[in-house]
């Protein structure tokens, strides 16, 4: 089978192209030279040590963590009921709402970040942290609505009907019957939304300022001034964490179907 060998060869090239850079960055972060070179000269762990001793990396990591958790939870609290309404009920304007709730993922993030900056920070004297949290929540909403909707579509509505016909209130049946049955979907939405927030640059770019930066923004700032392999070491750490999360989430939840 000559043809199947051709498809396989292209597959290998594709995966080398996708993964090769990650392997190289990993190797480069162990170099001992103060300027990033490849292949690296010498062996040292000093850049990894530096990642944990540079104050601004720790601060911005914590900012990213809090913004990520707060906006992911908010997007779930807002998005799960909306997804439920869109999937379970038919009402006028439903398809318009579907488009509307998906639209923050369609409009370029940079445009939304810029608009939020102009709108809140300069005109309304809005605190920058609040702007960051609000912006992240809005861009995560399409992810939570979409992933939870997919989970709800796979859940047979007759079990809710059974609960309601046996006397359970809608709210009660939602929390006791629906939610436990879509928890894998909610979990996938949580992971996907948190990663999206944690990695976000376009929104954060305009909504950070002196004293407050998310980790990706701090990395961009650092890169402008320093050329040592600290960013390589930090990137390696982030890549390893991402690989572990994605592998776990794929095995447990099949996350690639929701991306």
């Amino acid at each position, binding site marked *: 089978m000559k043809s199947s060998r051709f498809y396989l060869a292209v597959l290998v090239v594709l995966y080398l192209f996708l993964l090769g850079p990650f392997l190289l960055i990993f190797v480069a972060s162990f170099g001992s030279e103060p300027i990033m070179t490849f292949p690296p000269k010498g062996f040292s762990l000093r850049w990894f040590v530096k990642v944990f001793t540079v104050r601004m990396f720790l601060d911005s990591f914590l900012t990213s963590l809090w913004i990520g958790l707060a906006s992911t939870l908010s997007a779930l609290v807002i998005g799960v009921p909306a997804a439920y309404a869109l999937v379970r009920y038919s009402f006028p304007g439903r398809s318009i709402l579907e488009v509307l*709730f998906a639209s923050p993922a369609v409009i370029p993030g940079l445009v939304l970040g810029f608009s939020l900056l*102009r709108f809140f920070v300069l005109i309304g004297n809005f605190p920058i942290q609040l702007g960051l949290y609000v912006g992240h929540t809005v861009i995560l909403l399409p992810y939570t609505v979409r992933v939870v909707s997919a989970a709800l579509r796979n859940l047979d509505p007759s079990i809710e009907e059974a609960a309601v016909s046996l006397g359970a209130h809608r709210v009660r049946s939602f929390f006791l019957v629906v939610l436990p049955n879509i928890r894998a979907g909610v979990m996938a939405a949580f992971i996907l939304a948190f990663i999206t927030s944690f990695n976000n640059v376009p929104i954060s770019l305009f909504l950070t300022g002196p004293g407050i930066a998310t980790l990706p923004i701090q990395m961009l700032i650092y890169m402008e001034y320093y050329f040592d392999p600290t960013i390589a070491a930090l990137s390696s750490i982030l890549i390893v964490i991402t690989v572990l999360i994605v592998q776990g989430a794929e095995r447990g939840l099949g996350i690639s179907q929701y991306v």
Partner: protein
Amino acid sequence: MLSHTPRWLLVLILPALLSIGAFFLLPLGFILLESVYLGDKGVTLHQYFSYLSDPKFHTIFFRTLKFGLLVTGLSAILCYPASYAISRTDQHRKSLLMSIVILPLMTSPVARTYAWMVILGRFGLINQTLKGLGLIREPLRLLYTEGAVIVGLLQLFLPLMVLNLVSAMENISPELEEAAQSLGANPWVTFFRVVVPLSADGLVMGSVLVFTGSITAYVTPAILGGTKILTLATLLQQEAVVFMNWGGATVIAVVMTVLTIMLYLGIRTFRPRMV
């Protein structure tokens, strides 16, 4: 469909509707207004005329479109055979391959892009290799070129193409290919006349996502193109943050938004069952 009361429906939908209205529609409407409303001069398209006629803007606008087209075309060519191989493997391997393919989408964009600096940098893999082989004396300038941006965008957006193609190809029954082959078609004819037409929806959807992603991406052109190879996204950031040219920045923001909306509307019109 279950039965409902208007009040219950409102309880479910109102939080999402209010957030989208206040923190998405309102800010976007505001910059749209800002782009046409000039205080004492009233409503005018003056900012559009002056900014869109700037030759510097033309260069950057067409460069951005060129990046979008090149990245879309290259990813289609590379992903078609690869996605076919993925879709024809067993479930266990497919799951592993798919979880690897989405890695570039899930990794920190700064980490992912920095990896290309390790390869393309002054002391990076390519320059050190060429020097080691004695082919060059002075390092080549590979960063801050159009090629660097295209390669970086390609790595970022190939996964979107693969995801869409694989999900389209999974629905093609292998029996159709067997039928074509037993009727005398060779594997290439089968691929181009059976597999490709039946996965066209995936190709169109993947292409729209890759194209819109490429023309609006920020981190990749910012790191690999710098201020030398500006795109619409990095130009927007520069006008807003460096030059404080709010008028110019709002015009670019509106142009980027209109471009993406047009693409999505186009898809809804021509392939309504996909969106």
